[in-house]
Each structure stands twice: as C-alpha cells, then as structure tokens.
C-alpha cells in the first residue's frame, strides 16, 4: 500500500534527480566532447546516452591544479561567511522587531515576504536601479545630500562588488531567516517571560537568558540553510557582476557554471560542481541531525 503512495514520487525523483546526479558524476570522470556524436554509449529504450572516454581523476587533478579554483574557493568561503553572518543577524533583528506588539504588525509580516518572493534576476535588477553609477538612487541621494563628491562606483572595485553581492543576497534571503526565528519565538512559553519579568529581568536580559537559549535549534537551522544557499548562489552574480571585475567575484559555483556552460567543458565543469556537491552532502548530514533532534524549542 505504501508503495502506491510513495512510488510515483520516488520514481520521479529517481528519474529527474538520482539518474542525472549519477550521470553527472560519470561525466566528471570522462573526456566530454560535445561535438563528437560517435563513441561508446548506452542504448536505453531507443535513447542513446553518450558515455565518452573514461579519463579517471584527470578532470579533478586538472581543476585542483588551477589556481583560479583555489582563489574562487577562498572567495566563496568569505562570501558564505559574510552572507551567513549578515543574513542571521539581520534576520534575527527583524524577527525581534516583528515579535513586538504594534499596530500594523500583520501588514509588516506580509511586507517581510516581498524581497523573498522576487526572482533573483529582479532582485539584481532593482539593486542596479539603486546602486548604479549613473542613474542609481543611492548615488543620487548621497550626492544631493552632499555626503559624497562624486558618484560611487560600487561594482568597479572587486572587494566592494563582492560585498555588495553579499548584502544584496542578504536582502533577498534574510526574511526567510526571520520567518523561522519568528516561528521559534512564538513557541516559547509566555510563562518564562512572565517569570523573568517578575525576577526583574529587563528586555535585554530576557533576550539573553530566555529567548536565545530557546532558539538555539533554530539558529543552527538558519546557519545551515544560509550556508548551503551561500555556496549555491549563481543568478545574482549573473545579473550584477558576471564574476568580475577580472575574477574578483568568481565563486566556485560561478567558476563551475562558466566552465560547463560558457566554455562547454563538461568534464572539468562537472568536476568543479561535484566538489560543491560533496560539501552539500556534508551539510546535509548536519542538517539531518538537526531535523531529527527536532527543532521545536522546548516550551
């Protein structure tokens, strides 16, 4: 009986996730040539799946010998670290504000979802409207207020471009962290706050001794999810920086994307992407433990 219920979904996931995942892994060990249509292949239900020539770990050694890979890895680590910290802090800050009682709170909670529901292409686009050197609103406001002498070129310098990417991505993603934090805050028993207040604890002490300990599982959850999302981010780089100036905003996922789909080197490309996948597997193990531990705070 259970088979009938789970069967279709598992079959579907097998076809569209497990099979491509395995095939990509295979590709990362071969010498993929998209122009060659002959060569070894598997015939399956009239479908001819090319296998290409097995080259062992050559793609991986080639990729790992490339300093660009290591540069983009360090850059990715900075990007992910900065993004996780910003998203968690801003997400938590917004949750604290939205957890207060004030008229219009329901409206504010709806507004929270606006940045999160936008396509990252639109997110990038609207921040161009704010940060652009020529017509950006922020530059316009700063100039008008006399705070700067000339417009700021946010994307000209690699370091500034990378940090802008972090913050724009945070603008898009922090609301989701807020949702999780809010859900956690709402399940904390009010008796705890009442008791703390009777004991004379002010706002900050209640935050430190009641709210934060109860939210610990949620904090971990937010950190893990933000880490994965940070590693995988591609679309914002596409709209905002294209990995540049030079290679200054090239992350591992962008490097893998470029190698695979701009230069059509699927062998090394999938090898790069597989190093990311391995990392995600590791994070899944942590995430799985969290979910099993039950992230419902004890009330």
């Amino acid at each position: 009986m259970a088979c009938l219920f789970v069967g279709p979904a598992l079959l579907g996931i097998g076809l569209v996730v497990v099979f491509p995942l395995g095939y990509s892994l295979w590709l990362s060990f071969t010498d993929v040539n998209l122009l060659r249509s002959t060569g070894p292949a598997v015939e399956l239900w009239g479908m001819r799946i090319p296998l290409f020539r097995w080259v062992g770990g050559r793609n991986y050694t080639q990729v790992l010998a490339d300093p660009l890979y290591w540069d983009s890895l360090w850059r990715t680590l900075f990007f992910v670290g900065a993004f996780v910290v910003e998203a968690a802090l801003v997400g938590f800050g917004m949750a604290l504000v939205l957890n207060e009682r004030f008229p219009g709170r329901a409206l504010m909670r709806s507004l929270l979802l606006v940045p999160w529901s936008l396509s990252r292409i639109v997110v990038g686009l609207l921040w161009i409207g704010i940060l652009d050197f020529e017509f950006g609103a922020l530059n316009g406001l700063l100039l008008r207020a006399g705070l700067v002498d000339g417009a700021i070129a946010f994307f000209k310098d690699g370091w500034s471009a990378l940090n802008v990417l972090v913050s724009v991505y945070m603008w898009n993603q922090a609301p989701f962290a807020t949702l999780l934090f809010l859900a956690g805050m709402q399940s904390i028993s009010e008796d705890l706050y009442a008791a703390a207040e009777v004991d004379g604890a002010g706002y900050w002490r209640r935050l430190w001794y009641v709210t934060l300990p109860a939210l610990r599982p949620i904090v971990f959850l937010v950190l893990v999810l933000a880490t994965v999302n940070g590693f995988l981010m591609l679309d914002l780089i596409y709209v905002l920086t294209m990995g540049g100036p030079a290679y200054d905003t090239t992350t591992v996922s962008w490097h893998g994307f470029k190698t695979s789909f701009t230069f059509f080197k699927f062998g090394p490309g999938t090898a790069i992407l597989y190093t990311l996948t391995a990392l995600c597997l590791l994070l899944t193990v942590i995430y799985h433990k969290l979910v099993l531990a039950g992230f419902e705070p004890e009330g």
Partner: protein
Amino acid sequence: MTTRARYRGGNYRRRSAGSRVVLYATVTAVALWLVAPFVWLFVTSISYQKNLLARPFTLVPPEVTFDNYRMILGLVRFHAEGQAGKILASMWNSLVVAAVVTALNVVVGTTAGYAYARFRFPLKMLSLFALLFTRMLPTIVLIPAFFLVFRTLGLQNTLTGLVIAYCSFTLPFTVWIMKAYFETIPEDLDKSALVDGCNRFQAYCRVVLPVSGPGLVAGGAFTFMLCWNEFVVAQILNTKPGTTTLPPIIAGMNGQINIDYSVIAASGFLGALPAVLLVLVFQKYMVQGLTAGSVKG
C-alpha cells in the same frame, strides 16, 4: 490569553514614550528596507530614463509615463523592439511551465508526503535522508546530464524539458512540506475513516485531502513561485528564441546596452508582480507550511 500575552515583548499601550519612539523608528526602518527597493523599481518603471539620469536627483519623478509598459507590451514601436517584444511570449512560457510543474507536484508530492507522515515502510529513513539531500543539492550539478540527455531526446528548447528539469528541485520540497503538514493532522481522522469502511486511498482522498487545503496551498504556491522565478536552468537548457521563460529574457535585456534601464525595470516589475501577489495572498498558509517544513528558501 490577553493577560498573559502582554509579557511577550510587552504591551505597546504600556510602553513608555521613549521606548515607543524607538520601536516605531525601528519598524519604519525595517519597512523601508523591505519595500523601498521594490517601490523604487516601480517608480523607475514609470519614469523616463532622462529623468533618472538627471542630477540633482529627485525621489518623486517629475513626469510619469506608461511608455515603458507600452513598449514591452508591444503597443508602441521603439528601437529595441526585438528584445522587449519577447516579454509577453516568455511570460506565457513561464506560466505554462510553472502551472504544469505545480500540478504534478501537488498530485505526486502530496501523495508521497502523506505516506511519509502515516506509513512505516522499508527504506523509509534512507529515502527521507535522500530527500533532504536532494533539497540541499546544487541543481546546477544536474544540468550537464539534462543537457546531454535532452539533446538525444530532442527535449532541448522545449517546455517539456523545463518541466522535467524543474521537478528535480521542486518535488523533494513538496514531499517534505506535505509530510510536515500531514503530521499536524490528527491520525484519528484517518483511523475513523478506516473504521467506517474506507480503504486507505479513500480515506486519503475523501477525508484527509478535503481538510488539507492550507497545506496544499502552501506547497502549490511555493512550487509555483520557485518555477516562476527560476533562472539558471532555463538560461542553459532553453536558448532558442521563443522557448525560454521570463527571467532569462530580463537578464538578457539587462546585458544589452541599447535598452533604457526604465524599460528593463518595467519588465522586471511586471514579471515580479505575479509571484509577489501570490505570496501576499497566500502568505498565512505559506508561512505555516514553510516553517513547519523548514525548507531552503
């Protein structure tokens, strides 16, 4: 409830004037941070580019125009017509793909979610872990495989191909969200249906599903939003003109130098509107569903 509730962060009527000022100032700041960029996108979309470039800068546009919208809807001719003319066609493609994927997900994913919430079966824990892993997986790593297989099947540059590829990242989500939702429905409901002579399938269709509206809405709306906003997969797999969805078209316009930003802003705003409205309308259910399933957003 009311007497106890005030301890959570205090009651605003009891606040001192000072703390009320701080609270309202922060609330205003958060509201501006959340919506001002999106509002500005709308403002630029009803402005002329020359006014956006004008310095000193003004927040309120001196002239309001709907020309940008007329251009992208094909009502007036302009120099970059070819690009902007693709907007409506690609929106239609986005709608078709998102609707089909959502329908597939709701039917197949919900059923599986129910099984995970109710049944014990062999390999349940292992397949649950696999589901979690698929949700954390970089979708991009699957694309080279889709690219090659679709090439031999002739599915490149087709909406069918996109639907298949999109299921790879939506289906695991839906199963997970629905599993979490069904776990909130008391099992006694199914049991009494079984006692009354329903079989499992009847109990699911006639008793459980009718009370699962909020969960279905959450799962469906979330899937639709993911598909409507997806960029990378569509950009890679569907490159032929007329076969791709809206985000790649907007990104393509952004890469062109002969199109005014105001025109791109208009297409961005128009493209964002369906997803934003969907989320705002169903936000209550979505928030419940997403926090229960605690998904990767």
